[in-house]
């Protein structure tokens, strides 16, 4: 039993070696941060651009992680889990995008300012919750424990934002800064993990890896 447990732990370590590079953290941090900046400034297009981190993630993985960590084909059980994860996130983000579209359409209608503000606030709390759940699930699927901390932190920020009002400050503005603060912290943590990754996996000359 113990040896089975240790082999499972060994497999988990091999698996997490791919995500101990901080790139996923940086991508999520960038996404949340860009989303927040897009909302607080007149550059609302940034909220849509936030999705571009997907390309950053793919490029960084190919140019930073794979040449250092190497290439592995995991067990069929793990690959099955990866397939389920991908399907889940496709559905998850489709629902998120649909919700965003619905809220956007509601906000562009001719409703009173108070109603629009309330809908906007609800939309942001909804998005914060969706992001927190997504981060938690990333931690679960990727088996990286620090993502649970990020998700927990995000939840605390949401609850604090709902419970405490700052007099004279629009609740929407507070929420927007929550995005920026949380995104900035995840981004910073990602850079620290990346620096540690570079120390652990220095680039190898002619390391024998070729991206396929």
């Amino acid at each position, binding site marked *: 039993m113990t040896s089975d447990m240790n*082999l499972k732990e*060994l497999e988990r*370590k091999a698996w997490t070696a791919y995500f101990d590079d901080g790139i996923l953290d940086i991508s999520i941090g960038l996404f949340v941060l860009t989303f927040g900046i897009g909302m607080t400034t007149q550059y609302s297009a940034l909220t849509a651009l936030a999705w571009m981190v997907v390309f950053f993630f793919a490029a960084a993985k190919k140019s930073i992680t794979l040449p250092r960590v190497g290439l*592995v*084909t995991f*067990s069929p059980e793990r690959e099955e889990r990866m397939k389920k994860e991908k399907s889940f996130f496709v559905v998850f983000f489709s629902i998120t995008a649909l919700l965003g579209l619905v809220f956007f359409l509601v906000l562009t209608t001719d409703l009173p300012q108070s109603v629009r503000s309330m809908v906007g606030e609800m939309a942001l709390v909804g998005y914060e919750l969706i992001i927190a759940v997504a981060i938690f699930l990333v931690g679960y699927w990727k088996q990286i424990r620090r993502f649970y901390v990020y998700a927990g932190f995000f939840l605390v920020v949401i609850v604090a934002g709902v419970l405490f009002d700052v007099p004279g400050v629009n609740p929407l503005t507070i929420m927007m800064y929550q995005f920026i603060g949380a995104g900035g912290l995840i981004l910073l943590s990602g850079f620290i993990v990346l620096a540690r990754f570079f120390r652990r996996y220095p680039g190898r000359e002619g390391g*024998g890896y*070729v991206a396929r």
Partner: protein
Amino acid sequence: MSRDEGDGLRHISELDKLVHEPARLAIMAQLYIVRSADFLFLLPQTGLTTGNLSRHISKLEEAGYVKVEKEFVNKKPHTIIQLTEEGRAVFREYIETMKDIMKELSGST
């Protein structure tokens, strides 16, 4: 000498010495948990140097425990290593034997 102690010693002599060597054990354990891995992946995971890893993989390949595929992509070498069916069976057997030994040794103290 008791009967149990005799069995324990018999189990120890049954250990596959090729697998029992720490570096090769690390390589086989890493390959056991995945379907295949490239040379670069095994380097940090096993903590071996390039020369050592190469030497031990060659020994395992000679024994038929691992299969090595070498290819060139864009003029760069890419080596993929995987356990053979025999290698998997041998590793499983090694674990079972080690479990028996540990059980017997801990029971005798």
